[in-house]
């Protein structure tokens, strides 16, 4: 068995999330103070009662002091975690297990990223010292490999592929326009999206997620204690993480139309959560739409559409806000923005709002009570993937 799981043993009882965007007047410290503060004040839980903290960041700090210094936390356990672009989810996952283990009553998972101080557009970071032979290709370029590969495998004409990618970007901008915390809050026409300057391969500017600053936080407790803090907690149904061996970038068998790490993590999370038909059982999904072809491939890897058919479902509006299974109702990485360490918790924040009926103009009208977050880090063929399922009620 891949994992036993902790279904219904941990509850989310408070959340906070800053607006994402270019916060020229706020540092990582300020963003953390804002997100943590919102989680605390909105739930009425004082920080003094939190037993332990996790802070996820990839580039904006090292060590637990990344959080304890700005918030002036007195001698609490604070763990800094990092797992590429899935860092925020990793913070959440580790905090969940700490509660499930019985070690702590009440914990907080936080995530933050301050990207806009680098002076560069796009992601800019140096890894450890190396031999200079690491592939210099940028993130949009490695994800752009997906588009021609998918087109070739399923005989989708390239102009139709462009329509599919454009629809995904258009849909996520539509959703972001209904989200006051999103980095990009305007609808963008399909013509504008399709004719934008190219960044890599067939990816234009609108096919790429926003580079942004932001932070998010979640307060977790044992499920049986949840109603001490809120009438409408969310319960953790399944948590899965899969780190790949890099087989895809080594092996000619890998065809760039799937992420094996995602299918493995999804299968594990669904099994823990008791999900057998994700397309029909889920109220919504927040997925890692770092680039539009990524979202397309994820629809199949997460079991939302049969192999080779997601492109049709996208064009049919299945994943639109009014569709059968709304995907990225908050605008996703594309429109809400992608401050790396915060993104996984931002996805959870949308589940928190939607399942509690607090999503305002973009509220999904559904009787379903389960939502999914999917977070990816790395590149096709060599990545880590996180999948969680949360729900607003306990299973029997």
């Amino acid at each position: 068995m891949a994992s036993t799981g902790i279904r219904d043993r941990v509850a989310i009882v408070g959340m906070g999330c800053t607006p994402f965007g270019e916060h020229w007047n706020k540092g990582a410290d300020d963003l953390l103070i804002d997100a943590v503060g919102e989680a605390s004040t909105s739930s009425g839980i004082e920080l003094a009662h939190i037993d332990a903290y996790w802070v996820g960041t990839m580039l904006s700090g090292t060590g637990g002091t990344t959080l304890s210094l700005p918030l002036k936390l007195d001698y609490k356990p604070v763990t800094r975690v990092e797992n590429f672009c899935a860092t925020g989810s990793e913070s959440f996952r580790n905090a969940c297990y700490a509660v499930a283990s019985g070690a702590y009553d009440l914990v907080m998972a936080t995530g933050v990223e301050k990207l806009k101080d680098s002076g560069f557009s796009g992601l800019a970071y140096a890894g450890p010292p190396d031999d200079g032979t690491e592939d210099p290709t940028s993130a949009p370029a490695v994800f752009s490999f997906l588009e021609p590969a998918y087109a070739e495998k399923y005989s989708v004409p390239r102009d139709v592929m462009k329509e599919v990618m454009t629809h995904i970007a258009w849909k996520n901008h539509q959703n972001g326009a209904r989200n006051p915390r999103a980095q990009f809050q305007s609808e963008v026409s399909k013509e504008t999206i399709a004719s934008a300057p190219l960044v890599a391969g067939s990816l234009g500017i609108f096919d790429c997620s926003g580079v942004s600053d932001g932070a998010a936080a979640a307060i977790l407790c044992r499920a049986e204690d949840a109603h001490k803090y809120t009438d409408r907690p969310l319960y953790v149904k399944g948590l899965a993480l899969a780190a790949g061996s890099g087989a895809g970038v080594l092996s000619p068998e890998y065809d760039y139309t799937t992420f094996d790490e995602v299918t493995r993590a999804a299968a594990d999370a669904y099994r823990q959560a008791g999900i057998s038909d994700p397309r029909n059982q889920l109220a919504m999904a927040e997925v890692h739409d770092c680039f539009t072809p990524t979202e397309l491939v994820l629809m199949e890897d997460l079991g939302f559409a049969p192999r080779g058919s997601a492109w049709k479902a996208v064009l049919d509006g299945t994943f639109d806000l009014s569709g059968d299974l709304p995907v990225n109702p908050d605008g996703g990485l594309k429109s809400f923005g992608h401050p790396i360490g915060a993104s996984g918790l931002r996805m959870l924040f949308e589940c928190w709002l939607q399942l509690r009926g607090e999503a305002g103009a973009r509220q999904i009208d559904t009787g379903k009570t389960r939502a999914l977050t999917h977070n990816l880090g790395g590149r096709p063929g060599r990545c880590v993937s996180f999948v969680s399922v949360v729900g607003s009620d306990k299973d029997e």
Partner: protein
Amino acid sequence: MSALIGYGTYVPYWRLSGKGIREVLGTGGGKATRAVAAYDEDSTTMGVEAARDALATAPPGFVPEAVYFVTTSPAYLDKTNATAIHAALALPQHVAAYDFGGAARSVAGVLELVRASGALALVVTSDLRTGLPGSADEASGGDAAAALVFGAGDDAIADVLATASLTDEFLDRWRVPGEDASHVWEDRFGDSAYQPLARAAFTDALKEAGVTASEIDHLVVSGLHARAVKSFVKWSGVPAGAVTDLESRIGTSGAAQLGIGLSDALDRAQPGALIVTVALADGADVTVLRATDGVRNAHGRRIRSVTDQIDGAHREVSYGDFLTWRGRLDREPPRRPNPAAPAAGPALRHKDWKFALTASRCDSCGTRHLPAVRVCVKCHAVDRMVAERVADEKAAVATYTVDRLAFSPAPPLIAAMVDYAGGGRAGVEITEAQPDEITIGTKVEMTFRRLYTADNGVHNYFWKARPVREDD
């Protein structure tokens, strides 16, 4: 005595015409076309390509005892450049590697020493030649490399019948260390200084060899002083058809010029052909050779002749790019962080991958890994790997992209995942291709390049892929 047993050359893909210079500067440029090393090439990388080409013509299994690298445009000072060539050729540690250079004349001296040594040797000559914008050196220089292989007399492709060397001190051209363009004295002065030296050495060598000028089948005259070369050729009385003249098509390639000219002569030489090389540089060095029957073996193993390398796939570079590539135009850099220098430790530990493009194949299940790893991705066996060099293997593009965001000295960067003929996949950078020349399935071959030079001056060498061109 060491005998000449193989030869090889490298002419870069790019050309700059005098017209291209004239269109920008409004004057000068001349009538000729020159070869241009790309932004990702230097004397070391071109040397590697020429050495690979030369070793292909040597008797199978040949391993030199030493590599001698000669250039007037070294990528590094203090640090030996020949060691990178040595590593790229995957030569064992007991093979020595030494740099020579500074002056263009160095090549004549190294060849003389190697011939006298009796050693198995690989002499690699390589140069980038340019000058100030609008100068004759800029228009008439050329970037190229040539390599000569020396071994046992039984394998000789040409025997040396005689040599002669005369030396004098005079101000023909000079360059102070740190400068990237030469100064030259009045043209006519150098000509007058060279003619007596060239004529005397030529006469002495022919006399010693017991041959006359009319018997010469191939005359190769090299030298950075164009007028002196031209005057001497005219005086020699050797008919134009027997005189190697590549300079109007690729330029005058400094330390590499003698080797390129000799290689061209050897490409065309029949057994028994008389070849004379005359090198004019601070004196005159003359060598008289006669091709042996063995030259046919070299012809049979030769990948592409010098003429094919010059006339094969090539492309005109704009003068703006030429100036940029040579560091003479300080252009706005891409809005990306400058790439980090390769670190010494990892570069040493991964030397077989970085320099020799050596993969590992799992002895248990046969899966090939690029770069080499210790644990098999398929069967997870640990330390059961066998090293396999893939530098000389062809590969096919599995998928590709044009990356307009990544750092490149010449954006956009074309990146591809390629699958090697012998198995295994790697992400590579594509060079010498336009985006529309690459598609899924495009055949590529590997070439040793300088990816970039870091802020601390460290050159980042690694392999790239280039399309295999039909007319190659």
